[in-house]
């Protein structure tokens, strides 16, 4: 009897998954729990708030309201798959799971279900090749762009010569962290620096041995590909061994307030890449304040507004909303479907003027996509942490990565994937 009742409950509970919706649906596969929750929650807030702003201020996009149903993945691939399956039936237009692991999982699935996947600054780098990855977009920048821009920055610092320098890569021992290795190896061959790879197993609270190795090897620079609690631990350990912070560069996922504030003054001077602006000195925040925050509609009461990851979530939502607008324009209808949104993405062109119009002047690089380029220009800039003021300062302009190194690698990796998955590249 108990079993029957339990079964009935299970059935009742499960049948109720994902209510049917009529508006534009942009699911937010977020994570607010687990070792990556501190980072994921800010991103999710920015993502939600931008769509709330569009709904409140403009009545949606092209007159269509946007629904952002949230689903908790805890950065776990199995839960991510469950979230994807439970939301895709509701007419989901696009997915942005903020996890490289989940992205790898979803790439084959979205290609079959014909739903675009937008992975700004993460995911599979070679998805930039739109000929093979028809449904995946990773503009404005990817991991390999990040690695290349970091090395370019170091070249500038050293008068264009890195010969004989030692660079250590501290990385999250997962698909995410392993992504830049091949690029950095090629770059080290080109520029003559030695590369040491130092993996940190997830989640990465314990990094004593890694930083002991760094103390012994005395590399000139440390590049970090970390996420979640690993960032704080690494920056703390670096401060403990008195590693010069200005020689410590994080990828954009290792450069938010939650990563540096726990270390206090010791984190002063730490650098990180970014592909968008920081802070609240943008006109869009006036609108956000009027329509979302003061109206009490902000995600989690707006406690993270203006932080780096909040800005990044906002930026992802902005690119998606612009793609929706473009798709509506091409399709001639406001109620677009997922494959029409894909066309919108392919013809997306966010010019600096358009960004200024949207209230975010000079916030991100120009994004121009095409059938074969799903990754934009790959430009990124450097920011530095000022512990006393408690803020990130942009210290370089947007820099182009070394496409001479990256393009062959992207071509090679995407073609290998195409061959393995049996995809014939499209003609563009």
């Amino acid at each position, binding site marked *: *009897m*108990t*079993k029957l009742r339990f079964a009935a*409950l*299970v059935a009742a*509970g*499960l049948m*109720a*998954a*994902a*209510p049917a919706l009529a508006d534009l649906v942009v699911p937010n596969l*977020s994570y*607010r*729990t687990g070792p990556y*929750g501190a980072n994921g*929650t800010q991103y999710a807030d920015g993502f939600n708030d931008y769509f709330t702003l569009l709904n409140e201020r403009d009545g949606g996009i092209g007159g269509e309201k946007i629904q952002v149903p*949230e*689903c*908790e993945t*805890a950065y*776990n*691939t*199995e839960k991510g*798959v*469950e979230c994807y*399956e*439970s939301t*895709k*039936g509701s007419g989901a237009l696009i997915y942005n799971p903020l996890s*490289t*692991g989940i992205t*790898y*999982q979803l*790439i*084959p*699935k979205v*290609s*079959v279900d014909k739903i675009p996947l937008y992975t700004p600054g993460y995911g*599979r*780098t*070679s998805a930039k090749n739109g000929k093979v990855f028809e449904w995946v977009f990773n503009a404005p920048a990817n991991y390999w762009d990040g690695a290349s821009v970091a090395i370019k920055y170091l070249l500038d610092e050293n008068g264009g010569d890195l010969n004989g320098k030692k660079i250590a890569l501290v990385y999250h*021992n*997962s*698909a*995410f962290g*392993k*992504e830049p*290795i*091949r690029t950095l190896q090629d770059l080290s061959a080109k520029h003559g620096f030695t590369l040491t790879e130092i*993996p940190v*197993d*997830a989640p990465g609270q314990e990094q004593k041995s890694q930083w002991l190795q760094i103390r012994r090897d005395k590399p000139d620079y440390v590049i970090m590909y970390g996420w979640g609690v690993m960032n704080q631990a690494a920056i703390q350990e670096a401060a403990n061994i008195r590693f010069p912070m200005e020689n410590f560069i994080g990828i954009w996922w290792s450069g938010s307030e939650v990563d540096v504030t726990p270390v206090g003054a010791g984190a002063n001077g730490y650098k990180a890449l970014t592909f968008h602006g920081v802070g609240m000195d943008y006109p869009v925040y006036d609108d956000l304040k009027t329509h979302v925050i003061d109206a009490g509609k902000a995600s989690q009461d707006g406690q993270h507004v203006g932080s780096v990851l909040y800005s990044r979530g906002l930026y992802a939502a902005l690119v998606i909303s612009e793609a929706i607008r473009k798709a509506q324009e091409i399709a001639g209808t406001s109620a677009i479907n997922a494959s029409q949104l894909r066309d919108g993405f392919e013809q997306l062109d966010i010019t600096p003027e358009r960004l200024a119009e949207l209230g975010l002047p000079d916030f991100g690089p120009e994004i121009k996509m095409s059938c074969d380029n799903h990754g934009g220009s790959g430009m990124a800039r450097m920011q530095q942490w000022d512990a006393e003021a408690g803020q990130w300062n942009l210290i370089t302009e947007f820099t182009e990565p070394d496409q001479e190194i990256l393009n062959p690698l992207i071509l090679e*990796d995407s073609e*290998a994937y195409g061959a*393995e*998955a*049996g995809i014939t590249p499209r003609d563009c």
Partner: protein
Amino acid sequence: MLYREAGDFKTGYRADGQTFPIRLDRWGYYILLAVAVLVVPFLINDYWANAVFVPFLIYAIAALGLNILTGYAGQVSLGTGGFMAVGAYAVYKLMTAFPDISIVIHILLAGGITAIVGMLFGLPSLRIKGFYLAVATLAAQFFLVWLFNKVPWFYNYSASGQITAPTRTVLGHAVTGPATSAPAKYLICLAFVLVLAWVARNLTRGTSGRKWMAIRDMDIAAEIIGVNPLTAKLSAFAASSFFVGIAGALLFSVYLGAAEVGEAFGINKSFLVLFMIIIGGLGSIFGSFAGAAFMVLLPVLLKNLLVGQLGWPTDLAAHIELMIVGALIVLFLIVEPHGLARLWALTKEKLRLWPFPH
């Protein structure tokens, strides 16, 4: 009144020794099989397959495997995640190296490879017991995950260290890869579950199972009555790892499609499967299924109830869900330390008497 054994006469040892000696049970079992094979495949969709049935079936295989080792043979193992990884990487290497051979054979071979690895790590069980053995298998867990992360040959030198399952077919239907239909996924897992559960049932009630249980109950006494601890323990490790390896192979190839060893086969997986058999019931085939159902379905159910029905914020629901599952585990263990299987047996006892309790 309804559930009774009166009038159910057995005329031979075979009839007496069958798995479901009570006619009503037998019918229930046949109806369940008929529904699982003939009805569910026609109703199943992607969500039900990927969120409910496929993970349940795969974890049921893993729980069966661990139950053979821990429940029947009494050897505690915390290496389940690592052994699942062996199955997953074995099937990946086989799938990509021999694309023309049927995936079913690859999955069985992956189980075989895992059995060999499991035996290797089972060797310490001849000298150590209990907590010490648990630590030795924990070492296997960490070593195997490290190995698959470290040696690029295992993931075919892909840039990210991820393994991705290419499309493979059985009888013309894709069972792995992105184009797999929900019924195909479900049926391939169901086929493995049915065969393996049948094997497990017959293994555990035959000579080998009796040897394992003798070792579990008292190894010295077992040795005195003629059970060879070497073969008994190693065969338990081999059989268990075979099951766990197949579960890992299916988890990667059919369910996830892409996997990363640290994330998909970490220590959490070992604990998850261990919880399944503890909650389900040690030394019980039904318990393996009940435990897998409990641990797989309850979080999904709670999530849909709290977020889908009540509209709670997702983070709050996720935290509450952890607390509810944890509290239920503790509650179950206090109320019935022998797991859901024992609870089910007690229910049947009561049902036999119902509605006349005396």
